[in-house]
């Protein structure tokens, strides 16, 4: 149980800057998810904390202790690798007991902890087996179990679910969340899967090219992304973007995207008075684009004429790929929709949930 602090940490591999001026404070008992596309430096960030890489610049603290020069074994952390990294010649029991044996834990204590962790993970029947006799899901549990028995201050997980099939992954996700609640320890979890990040993280740090983009709770990240990258990366299907201009007056401000023009709600318009006349990038999430027939009440509607290009039935919802002029965007609508390919519809945008970004800096305009 400990907090973790990255203080202006930079890591270079030759000329490549993998992590750039990372400044993060992870609170005690938090479940922090490092999220980003592959090559964004999230794994390097984790390995820096594990002591498998040395920072080029900056300091890393676990609790109050500076750990820059502390070897991995003395950092009191445990890590679950993407490949699980189980010792292939040892039984499950020995895999889990390995770290404890090296720390000269009494035999009875080792046995108690391994048994306890095995019961917690439902692998008590597998303790005598070798890793190659286990399925993917079982191996993953053993890898987690090996981390648990150590009772570390911080758990590090590097994409531990990416080798599981889709169904198992959903299950394992819930298990890990439960585990976090039960152990009350700091978790730092690396993934490129936004679903994992949204469902498991108490906070998410979004990384891009080694630079922290935004760090906040999943809710805030989703509702008010700090920049274009975060907005586009989180959410599936991704947010729709239009190049647009703010026109009109403060009393009656419009977003003009050439092919359509929608009214900005008055309160929002007041906040945006300095941007009047400027180019912006207008973003709206697919679930804020409605079929006019099944439009929820009490929203500030903005109407856009569009042609239905493709429909995708997902069961509980339908994705409509819409075209205004040549610009394509996605709506996530009620499955009862009667829109068919080729139809002209008047899509309703929920103007209460619009996002605006500066086209130069890509930062959100608030």
């Amino acid at each position, binding site marked *: 149980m400990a907090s973790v602090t990255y203080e202006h940490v930079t890591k270079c591999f030759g000329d490549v800057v993998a992590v750039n001026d990372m400044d993060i404070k992870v609170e005690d008992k938090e479940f922090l998810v490092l999220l980003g596309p592959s090559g964004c430096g999230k794994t390097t960030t984790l390995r820096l904390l*594990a*002591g*498998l890489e040395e920072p080029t610049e900056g300091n890393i603290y676990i609790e109050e202790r500076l750990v820059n020069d502390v*070897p*991995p*074994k003395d*950092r009191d*952390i*445990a*890590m679950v*690798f*993407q*490949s699980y*990294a189980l*010792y*292939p*010649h040892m039984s499950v029991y020995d895999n889990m007991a*390995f*770290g404890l044996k*090296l*720390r000269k834990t009494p035999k009875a204590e080792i046995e108690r902890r391994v048994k306890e962790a095995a019961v917690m993970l439902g692998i008590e029947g597998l303790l005598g087996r070798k890793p190659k006799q286990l399925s993917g899901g079982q191996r993953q549990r053993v890898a987690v179990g*090996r981390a648990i028995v*150590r009772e570390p201050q911080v758990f590090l997980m590097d994409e531990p679910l990416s080798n599981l099939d889709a169904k198992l992954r959903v299950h394992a996700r819930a298990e890990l969340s439960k585990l976090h609640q039960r152990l009350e320890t700091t978790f730092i979890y690396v993934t490129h899967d936004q679903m994992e990040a949204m469902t498991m993280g108490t906070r998410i740090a979004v990384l891009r090219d080694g630079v922290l983009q935004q760090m906040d709770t999943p809710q805030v990240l989703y509702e008010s992304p700090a920049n274009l990258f975060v907005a586009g990366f989180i959410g599936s299907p991704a947010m729709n973007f239009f190049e647009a201009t703010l026109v009109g007056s403060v009393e009656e401000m419009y977003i003009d995207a050439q092919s359509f023009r929608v009214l900005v709600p008055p309160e929002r318009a007041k906040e945006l008075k300095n941007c009047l006349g400027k180019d912006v990038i207008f973003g709206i999430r697919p679930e804020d684009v409605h079929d006019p027939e099944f439009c929820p009440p009490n929203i500030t509607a903005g109407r856009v004429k569009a042609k239905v290009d493709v429909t995708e039935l997902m069961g509980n919802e339908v994705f409509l790929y819409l075209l205004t002029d040549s610009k394509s965007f996605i709506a996530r609508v009620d499955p009862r929709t009667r829109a068919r390919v080729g139809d002209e519809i008047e899509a309703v945008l929920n103007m209460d949930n619009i996002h605006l970004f500066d086209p130069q800096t890509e930062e959100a305009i608030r």
Partner: protein
Amino acid sequence: MKDRLRKVLSSAPLHIAILGIALIWSLPSVGLLMSSFRPRNDVLGSGWWTVFQHPFDFTQFQLDNYIHVLTAEGMGRAFLNSLTISIPSTLIPIAVAAFAAYAFAWMEFPGRQTLFVVVVGLLVVPLQMTLIPLLRVYNRLGLAGTFLGIWLAHTGYGLPFAVYLLRNFFGTLPKDLFESAFIDGASHLTAFFRLALPLSIPALASLAIFQFLWVWNDLLVALIYLGGTEAVAPLTLKMANLVNSLGQNWHLLTAAAFVSMALPLVVFLALQRYFVQGILAGAVKG
């Protein structure tokens, strides 16, 4: 049915060719084996293949040659000497090489790559070049003619290849395993003994076979550093002497040859499944 017949027929020429080659290849050894069991007069009077004229006449075979060779000619002693030379000369270089290979594969230190290239470069040095200078050093140190001296010599000659093979094998072990072990609290020494060694048994076994066979069959190094005295001469040296002193006694030479072949054969057959695995070691990821 028809397909199967065609399959058998189409592969038949290949099988016949392979069988033929195998037969020709093993013919000398078979001849040697037959001769070693035949009495002196038979060996001198007729070819070994004549035993097949009466294949069930077991009186034409006897063990006297072996008994004679092992007792009267001192082959028993030479056999023990060979073992005394070969076993440490196999174990010492592998032990040293394993430590070195681990360091080359997993430890970071300045000049690691250069040092490794130098070690591998030693593979091209012909050992004959080293005989005279090394023997002069041995004479000064009093190591000439001792088992310790030849163990060290074989260790030196075997190390470059051993380091090269093991480093390449260690290098293919997954990095995650070692990192995981370090986080679990392992030092390099622990990682070496608990991870690298147990996971490299195939490579170690095949290396042991290579080194053992090379030392067992070696004549030159033993002759130079040990000399030819009865007390220390290995089988190979004894055999060479037998050719001189018993040049006419084919029945004894054949038996002696088989005595020296026996152990390598046993070692090879016992470890051959590792051998096949180990030769591929590092070549293809399996």
